[in-house]
């Protein structure tokens, strides 16, 4: 009896709990629909403040450090901003994390120089000539002849040879290679496919002519080759030749005593946290200005304090969301340039056909109507997003080629103007009208239209920004809901958007961003057979323009510009995605740092002219 009543009590308790839980969830869902309005009000208030002060543009920044004094040697403390350690795969041919790339950049470098338009120059450690290569199999091939300068040496004193350069191709192309670098750029070399498949022992398209001369033959000549399509990194063969390829990445030659040909040589490494470099006096461009460089990992949470106290003189990247609060740090100068980056909103138009390795556009997809997409692009005030959320250091994007590529970015194309009335008009005309009187539009068939929006968590502004977007779309009468009612963590987000080809059909639209490469060619992101074409968009005109952009005719710069101008317009007309924001890359430097510039056209641009960077005082300046 008593046991029985106890069970009854328990049951009642559970019921009561269930009610409470249900009530709670009810309340939260109401709350979330209220919140966007609140946050929008807040934004409006902020807007008022911002228009008076606190907005930044590229013009507010210098590109060159104002200190132009004579360097005195000494030690530079360099902060690698990262919330993880650096992995320690210290070789261009094997690394895959960005922190490692920063560490390698101080002691090794590319053999080919690059100018501000990301074209290879003849100013690097190697020069090159091209000649046509015509056979029946490859009617428009091309052969590059590279000559490495005589004074280019490895840190151990051995000369950098053509063998060393060819060796990096042999390693990356090898079937046992463990890294991520192998790809189309390599497969384009004559004989590489056979070598990669293990059918040939050598790569027939690569020929070592003499100690300093290397010939590489490509199947098809295309302008991308001149803008980043060649693998420009050599590997010291005399050190690696006895190590089996599968074990190279974990060998001491990569992890403990790496050597390179850059201005500084590695002196000591504390795995994951710091590296000390010493000057390499025989550096081919000239004697480096610093005696020593100390690189250490700095977490994004403490980077401001490190800069203020002079613990580091400069960092590789400064977190954009901390800039405004620290813009007036007295001992540091903030330099900026346009980042190779754009953020965008993508529309899922189909899915990935894994069998045929191409996109499969679905004419019945929820977002298949171009008018709907256009209206959504017009409905968002991206200009306000940049001002309110980023104080101008990110700003309205217009096309899918960012202004970091000034030759190709179509500055005259206005992109999508913010015009909610136009958006409503487009929707009305296309048949998206409110049938049932709930204030939200139905689709042309009169069925309820709910659009699921996937957004990524991570930054502080991720949530308010997602709400701003949703509110903007609701303002023109579209029922857009945050996918699952919450932001998606990075891995989940890209899994569902389709990084492995298994697109989640629940995602209708998503907010993403791309860091673009030095090569302007957008094929890897919008080509019909590309996995990273997340909208799963394809059209005849698109394929045609993308192919035209890397055709032999496009060696003519004017022609190529014209092609990409048309492509940028096509993307505006068809809207598989629409760009939202461009960004500034912000680099803080201590006032004792001299000969430093983030201007890609400058003769002290930090990447190639790293050896010129110097300091003008023994101790770093501290903030007052």
């Amino acid at each position, binding site marked *: 009896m008593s046991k029985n009543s106890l069970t009854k009590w328990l049951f009642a308790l559970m019921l009561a709990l269930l009610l409470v839980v249900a009530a709670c969830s009810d309340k939260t869902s109401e709350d979330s629909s209220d919140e966007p309005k609140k946050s929008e009000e807040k934004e409006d208030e902020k807007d008022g403040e911002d228009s008076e002060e606190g907005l930044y543009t590229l013009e507010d920044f210098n590109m060159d450090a104002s200190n132009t004094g004579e360097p005195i040697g000494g030690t530079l403390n360099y902060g690698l901003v990262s919330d993880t350690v650096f992995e320690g795969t210290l070789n261009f041919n094997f690394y895959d994390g960005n922190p490692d790339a920063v560490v390698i950049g101080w002691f090794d470098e590319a053999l080919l120089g690059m100018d501000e338009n990301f074209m290879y120059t003849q100013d690097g450690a190697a020069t090159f000539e091209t000649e046509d290569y015509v056979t029946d199999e490859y009617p428009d091939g091309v052969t590059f002849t590279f000559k490495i300068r005589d004074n280019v040496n490895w840190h151990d004193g051995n000369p950098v040879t053509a063998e060393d350069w060819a060796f990096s191709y042999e390693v990356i192309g090898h079937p046992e290679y463990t890294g991520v670098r192998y790809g189309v750029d390599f497969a384009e070399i004559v004989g590489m496919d056979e070598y990669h498949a293990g059918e040939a022992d050598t790569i027939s398209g690569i020929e070592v002519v003499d100690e300093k001369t290397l010939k590489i033959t490509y199947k098809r000549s295309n302008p991308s080759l001149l803008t980043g399509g060649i693998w420009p990194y050599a590997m010291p063969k005399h050190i690696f030749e006895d190590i089996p390829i599968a074990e190279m990445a974990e060998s001491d030659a990569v992890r403990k005593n790496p050597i390179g040909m850059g201005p500084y040589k590695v002196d000591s490494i504390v795995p994951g946290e710091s590296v000390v470099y010493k000057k390499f006096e025989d550096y081919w461009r000239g004697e480096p200005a610093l005696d020593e460089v100390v690189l250490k990992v700095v977490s994004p949470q403490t980077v401001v304090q490190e800069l203020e106290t002079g613990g580091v003189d400069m960092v590789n990247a400064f977190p954009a969301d901390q800039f405004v609060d620290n813009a007036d740090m007295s001992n540091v100068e903030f330099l900026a340039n346009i980042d190779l980056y754009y953020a965008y909103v993508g529309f899922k138009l189909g899915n990935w056909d894994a069998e045929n390795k191409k996109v499969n556009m679905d004419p019945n997809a929820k977002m298949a109507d171009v008018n709907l997409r256009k209206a959504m692009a017009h409905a968002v005030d991206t200009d306000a997003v940049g001002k309110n959320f980023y104080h101008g250091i990110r700003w309205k994007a217009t096309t899918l080629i960012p202004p970091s590529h000034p030759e190709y970015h179509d500055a005259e194309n206005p992109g999508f103007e913010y015009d909610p009335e136009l958006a409503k008009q487009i929707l009305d005309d296309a048949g998206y009208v409110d049938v049932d009187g709930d204030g939200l539009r139905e689709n042309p068939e009169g069925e309820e239209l709910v659009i699921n929006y996937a957004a990524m968590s991570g930054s502080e502004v991720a949530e308010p920004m997602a709400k701003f977007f949703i509110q903007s779309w609701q303002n023109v009468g579209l029922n857009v809901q945050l996918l699952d009612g919450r932001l998606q963590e990075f*891995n989940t987000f890209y899994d569902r958007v389709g990084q*492995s080809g298994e697109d989640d059909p629940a995602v209708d639209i998503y907010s993403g961003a791309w860091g673009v490469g030095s090569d302007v060619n957008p094929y890897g992101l919008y080509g019909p057979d590309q996995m990273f074409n997340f909208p799963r968009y394809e059209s005849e005109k698109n394929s045609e323009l993308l192919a035209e952009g890397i055709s032999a005719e496009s060696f003519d710069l004017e022609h190529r510009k014209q092609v990409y101008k048309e492509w940028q317009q096509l993307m505006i007309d068809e809207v598989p995605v629409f760009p939202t924001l461009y960004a500034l890359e912000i680099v803080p430097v201590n006032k004792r740092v001299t000969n430093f510039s983030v201007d890609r056209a400058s003769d002290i641009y930090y990447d190639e002219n790293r050896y010129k960077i110097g300091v003008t005082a023994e101790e770093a300046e501290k903030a007052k």
Partner: protein
Amino acid sequence: MWKFSLRRIMIMIPQLIVLSIFIFVLAKMMPGDALSGQIDPNIDPERIEEIRVQMGWYDPWHEQYASWIGGVVTGDFGDSFRFKMPVTEIISQRIVNSFWLSLVTLILTYLIAIPLGITSGRYNDTLRDQLIQGYSYLGFATPLFIFALVMLWVFGFKLGWFPTSGSVTPGLEPGTFDYFMSKFYHLLLPALSMALIATYNTILYLRNEIVDTKQKDFVLTAKAKGASETRIYNQHILRNSLLPIAAFFGYEITLLIGGSIFIENIFGYPGMGQLLVESVTLRDYSVVTATTLLFGAASVLGALLSDIILSIVDPRIRIK
């Protein structure tokens, strides 16, 4: 005694097996994998696919588990995808750091807690006792990660007394005296941050034990025989009161592991806790499974240690 320990160890084995299955399956269920971070137009997606197949990430989970556990039994945790080297090697680099951090923390904890506990027990219900109790309740209530951040900000950045990240000053020769001192200097602040607020349970246990023991008959006898106060406290009471503290020692290890995850991340101290968090966010499965398994094993061992110490101290436990 041996029978008890043996039986206790036998129970541990199925615990560890179940733990390993849980860890492995949960790790694999996390969305994304170590290559999701490589969404970069400069890297060929086909190459990524190729690597996924090479790594066996598409095999059914029980096959992956079998090959993994097979390796674990022989001490091979596989290769870390992210670091491109054997997991055992990375862990051996990191575990040294974590070991020293834990050791120093433990020593500091006891150095702070034992004198305070004794004082508080000996002079119970005086102002001194209340102050010490106040401190230990404060420690109990303060979240570790906030306290650590405050310590870092005050002593690391504002006063500049301690280094703010890393485990050693760059450029020192390993094995030298300077290197050793620099390592110690780097772990002092994190260890102190953890020790200062991890003392509460030791203080309170000790206090209660002393207050209890004070009223026992043998103490009265000692007093009647005319032993001095100091002698009574140091010889008779303390020795009896320390027993539960010794028994608690094993569980202290478990607490340290939890704490190290916060502490190492805040102080940028490259130990096991930091390795675990990074590997989880970057989906470096082999490292995640290996570190969690080691943490799990350490907790189970800690509990075992406590039980064994207890059974030595208190024979009644053995009988059961």
